[in-house]
């Protein structure tokens, strides 16, 4: 028994629906246990109406395999949604694609994509746009926030759309582009931009100065001035390196690091170091 819809491909309107359903609700039911899991099942509801009308058992399997833990950067992560859409389409058309494939692809790609996406969006684009916008907003100028709203309002959806489209177009071959040898070189090189920009953020975003004075013969010299002469921004840098060491080597949670930083600052202020 063949369905009338069996060999029909997804129309661009239906693809857009899958893209939009994920784009709007990826974190809608976010919990620590599942994060973005159910946005997948929800984005495939029109899909199962088209392909699985008379096959409830297969539809049930699809919804279940798209209700499992999933977590990536949701905008660049649309690449995975695109790849999986092309796979699900082939499965629905009865082509020779195993049903575990979408799950395997999701679990193996969500980590790498989250790494690239988080450093691209939270590490580079957002801080840079914000620092431009903050410059424009000096003196209470509304132009600053308006610039940021427009700039990210264009960039964010564009990244999301292009990621989904290229994922769907490339299908499984996109995986080579993402985890292959050449891709590793590109992402490694790209990562260098992220690391350098983060270094720049460390030098410009943190404000920590010491009011201490050190005696210099009869007069006294502010310690901060001396520090600036030897190594500018050394106090902010030390705070960053301490926090990084606590997170990466000591595996501390951000909340614990906040408590430690607060304790250091409190003691510092009371003693008069900061």
């Amino acid at each position, binding site marked *: 028994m063949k369905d009338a819809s069996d060999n029909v491909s997804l129309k661009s309107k239906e693809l857009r629906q899958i893209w939009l359903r994920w*784009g*709007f609700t990826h*974190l*809608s*039911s*976010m*919990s*620590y246990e*599942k994060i973005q899991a*159910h946005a997948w099942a*929800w984005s495939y509801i029109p899909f199962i109406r088209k392909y699985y009308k008379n096959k409830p058992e297969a539809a*049930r399997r699809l919804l279940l395999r798209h209700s499992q833990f999933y977590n990536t950067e*949701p*905008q660049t992560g649309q690449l995975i949604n695109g790849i999986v859409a092309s796979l699900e389409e082939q499965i629905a058309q009865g082509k020779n694609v195993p049903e575990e494939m979408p799950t395997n692809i999701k679990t193996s790609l969500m980590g790498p994509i*989250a790494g690239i996406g988080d450093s691209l969006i939270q590490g*580079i684009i*957002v801080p*840079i746009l*914000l*620092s431009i916008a*903050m410059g424009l*907003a000096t003196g209470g100028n*509304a132009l600053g*926030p308006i610039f*940021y*709203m427009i700039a*990210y309002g264009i960039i*964010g959806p564009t990244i*999301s759309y292009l990621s989904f489209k290229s994922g769907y177009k490339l299908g499984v071959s996109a995986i080579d582009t993402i985890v292959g*040898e050449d891709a590793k*070189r*590109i992402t490694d090189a790209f990562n*260098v*931009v*992220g*690391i*350098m*920009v*983060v*270094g*720049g*953020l*460390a030098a*410009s*975003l*943190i*404000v*920590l100065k010491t009011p201490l004075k050190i005696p210099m013969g009869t007069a006294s010299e502010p310690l901060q001035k001396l520090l600036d002469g030897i190594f*500018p*921004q050394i106090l902010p840098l030390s705070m*960053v390196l301490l*926090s*990084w060491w606590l*997170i990466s080597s000591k595996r501390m949670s*951000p909340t614990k690091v*906040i408590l430690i*930083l607060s304790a250091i*600052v409190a003691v510092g*202020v*009371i003693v008069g170091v900061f």
Partner: protein
Amino acid sequence: MDYALLLAAILTGVFCYLGAIESPWLFGMTGGFYIVGRPLVAGLLVGLAFGDVKAGVLCGLAVQAVFIANLSTGGATNSEITYAGYGGIGLAMATTKDPGVAVALSILVGQTFGLIFYNLRMAFYSYWNARAEKAAETLNTRGITLNHLIYPQISTFLLRSVPIFLAVYFGKGLVDWLLANIPHVVTDIISVLGGVLPALGIAMLMNIVIKNKAHLIFFFAGFVLLAFAGLHMIALVFISALVAYLVFLASRKSIVAPVGGPESVEMNRKRADEDVFEDEDLF
């Protein structure tokens, strides 16, 4: 009854919901968390609600500096930026309109109530998740919609808008009391802490991008280009793009030997390496 304050407090509460990380209405995180959720934008929106855009933007600007390296990875976050932004800026706009007060209140709200509310909600939503999975099992698409979208969003709306509305509307007395009674040293600690907090966000970013301890050299290169050489952020982006391209060239396997054989590849690689570390001359 102060209708202007009532309206402004309601609007602030609604914005706080729209800017939440799990709010879907403005294309998910893109327009919600990343746009409406940023304190700089919050300043503009709350300023509009209170009819004083300039004071709002000034408060937003000050609070944004503290939370510029706010990060959310895998549900873990260093501070609840939406509660912090709307709670702190909203309360400040309802009382003194002073950016310093907005910063202190944002830190208090974001690092305490905000994180507590956030973590409770994250734990609680497992309940909706379990129901959504059950609905998938029984092929109940309406159940998925209800438990993925409708019920969680109603809960979020209540958890975000109501406390922020109450805080802004009834917070005047509390803020006045706090300002009058908090010892000077505590406000000093909070303001220094505001300057230090971005360090944590930056550390979380480092944790994502630095996979190899040797890569710290790139971090220091970026750091000295701003701290020592005094470059602008945009200039740093171009220089780091150049360095990244050189790293890309240098990582080429010798199998793809260009004209001139393996020796020249070796030389190219060497030269590229030298170029990469050129920035270190600034030390």
